[in-house]
């Protein structure tokens, strides 16, 4: 979606796409839809070797990235992942890594962060109260209990929840937000694997029934959390948007090519204005989506004061138009697109699910109004 890449970034894009083509092409993704993890053996370690989970982490904490622009590099990888509907935790790992790195981690948290960068362990984000009013979560509250805390509540939609060893939980505490790093095998905590619309991703419902967590599991300073959580949300939105753009781009290209090959009434169907005009409208939405997604990536990278707003615009725009484009592509493929063997439904599933994750378009529009004091 970026119009120009530095030579380092071009190299990153190429190595990412080569890795995906070799290790987990769409045929492999498809073959794994009924498996427990959805991820091929050794995939995460190999991805970690390419630096996928270290992008948001400074070098002195065991991380690093190619261009010095961690967010742009991550968005580049997310886009490539979207092109082949890659499974496994990418957005979640990077969000957790960014949160830990930015929060002044304890020694134990720093060790976990290093393990995340190496792909040895998996962590995901439970947005909890960060997006509680989006309807994706029931909300999670943290109550002081002696020197510990007690977490209660539920999170109904946790991306990569079944793959994770650790959860970064954003909970409400009084008027404030606070975050905890919690092992999934903690008493009172239940992670229920869910079947889902997007068969190439894994989701869980997580319930906290008076889960007792020690002070040492608090991430960052209490009271200073809101800014870090906002940054996590921005990052999650921008990366999942980049992934959707990659998916939309491939889906649209498949459809464009089909319209030039398929003939009816003695002509390529792409020569009919009814088809041509649909393609033009889709292409316009996609180009506009790329433009706003790039603006969002840059704003988050630069920590611009209005980054949150631009991110919400990108999430809302791409969330809506992604689904429109998937529908338009269906219309052009006709019956063949309705078959299980055709890849179209896999793209439709991913694009739709990404549109709902981390706040659906309506929620982001409401957020924009609030940012303007309305």
């Amino acid at each position: 979606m970026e119009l120009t890449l530095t030579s380092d970034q071009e190299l990153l894009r190429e190595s990412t796409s080569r890795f995906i083509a070799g290790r987990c092409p769409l045929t492999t993704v498809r073959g794994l839809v009924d498996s427990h993890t959805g991820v091929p053996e050794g995939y995460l370690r190999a991805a970690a070797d390419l630096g996928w989970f270290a992008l948001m982490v400074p070098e002195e904490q065991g991380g690093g990235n190619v261009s010095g622009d961690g967010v742009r590099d991550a968005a580049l990888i997310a886009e490539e992942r979207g092109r082949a509907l890659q499974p496994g935790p990418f957005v979640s790992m990077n969000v957790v890594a960014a949160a830990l790195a930015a929060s002044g981690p304890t020694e134990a948290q720093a060790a976990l962060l290093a393990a995340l960068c190496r792909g040895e362990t998996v962590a995901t984000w439970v947005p909890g109260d960060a997006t509680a009013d989006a309807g994706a979560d029931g909300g999670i509250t943290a109550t002081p209990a002696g020197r510990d805390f007690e977490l209660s509540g539920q999170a109904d939609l946790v991306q990569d929840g079944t793959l994770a060893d650790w959860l970064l939980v954003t909970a409400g505490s009084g008027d404030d937000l606070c975050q905890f790093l919690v092992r999934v095998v903690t008493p009172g905590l239940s992670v229920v694997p869910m079947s889902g619309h997007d068969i190439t991703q894994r989701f869980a419902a997580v319930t906290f029934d008076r889960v007792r967590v020690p002070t040492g599991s608090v991430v960052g300073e209490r009271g200073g959390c809101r800014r870090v959580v906002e940054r996590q949300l921005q990052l999650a939105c921008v990366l999942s948007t980049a992934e959707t753009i990659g998916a939309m781009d491939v889906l649209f290209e498949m459809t464009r090519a089909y319209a030039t090959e398929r003939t009816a009434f003695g002509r390529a169907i792409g020569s009919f204005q009814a088809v041509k005009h649909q393609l033009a409208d889709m292409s316009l939405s996609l180009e506009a989506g790329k433009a706003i997604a790039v603006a969002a990536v840059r704003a988050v990278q630069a920590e611009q004061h209005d980054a949150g707003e631009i991110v919400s615009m990108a999430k809302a725009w791409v969330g809506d138009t992604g689904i429109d484009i998937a529908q338009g592509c269906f219309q052009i493929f006709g019956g063949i697109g309705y078959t299980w063997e055709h890849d179209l439904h896999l793209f439709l599933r991913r694009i739709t699910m990404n549109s709902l994750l981390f706040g659906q378009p309506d929620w982001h529009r409401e957020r924009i109004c609030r940012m303007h004091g309305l």
Partner: protein
Amino acid sequence: MGALDGRSDASSDGVDDYRRRARAWLTTNLPPLEGAAQRPTSEDLTPEVMAANRALQRKLFEAGYAGISWPKEYGGHGLSSAHEGAFLDEASAFAMPDFGALSATTFDICVPTMLTHGAPEFLRRFIPKVLSGDALVCQFFSEPSSGSDLAGARTRATRDGDQWILNGQKVWSTLAHLADWGLCLTRTDWDVPKHRGLTWFAVPCDAPGLTIRPIRQINETAEFCEDFFDDVVVPDTDRIGALNEGWAVTQTMLVLERGAGRRDAAIPPSGPGPMPEELVSLAQRAGRLADPLTRQRLARVHTTDFVGRVLTARIAEMGRLGELNPGLASYVKLFRGTYTPIRARLAVEIGGGPAMIWEGGDAKRAATSLAYLNGRSASIAGGTNEMQRNGIAERALGMPREPSFDAHRPFNEVVREAQNPKGTP
């Protein structure tokens, strides 16, 4: 990073200096802008307003700030578009010459077209007049019988020694009644297919035989005109481009018309800025600021406005990186054509029925209704949405061309047949 951030670049150093000098000159010589710049309508452009703006243009010209990026040999200054961008940036806080839509047709569309296709002798004679504010240029382009099918123009130019005699009718020529010159598409050869017999001329608007009449529009202004050519004489030296090769000139003009020539197009916006104030106050007046549907509509408009701006910058950047693809320019035009009427409708939905009535001549209250009516033109003027979709699909996406029933036959035969369709008794 040094090479990328541009500060070490010699030409950019020049821009910084230039910007400083421009700012100093602007501060001493131009009045500051009061309120937001709003494009004047045809009604605002009274003879006094036109004269004042011409005087401002002359002031820019005399100080060396007109035609900043145009070639030196024609009276411009031959500087980079970055210099021009810096000047416009600084000038945005001042009252600059504004001829309404004629500013765009002159400086962004017609003259850049002339600079691409005109003869040096013509340009040496003509461009200084433009720069000094004495030649505002409109387009004599569409005709009653050829709108989307521009190559079907029927205005006839007949050779008479060193000059041409023009006969026919043009329409939708924006602000032609206030312009000094028009760039006119004519047919010079009727015995060849339609794209191969076209030629362009620069025509003075006060030429004997040329009658220009404003057309009253749905928004009660009269920005468009209809123009009647009765034996209008034009010297061959005012021809723009080669004889019968006017289609190439047309292509250039269409690309520029779709926004590619706008001087500020490639500058990416820094951020969305405030929500559209007029819509927020509409919602407030309607008591709907807390209504979730209204809030969705406000955010929708605000988002689409910003998406349009980043898209425009993206397309301009694509043009800068590659060639000026006519398909690319259509993206910006189609975005505008698609979302302008939607935006106007959302405004009406935000304000509700009461927003569509007002007391007496309260122009501010009438603005929602006016924007609603004005919103209709974006999907038609300068090429319909359908033509833009064809452009995108055929030129950017590689779809097969529309089958054509007239492109390969002599034009006079096509016209004859259209007047006497086969199968009509």
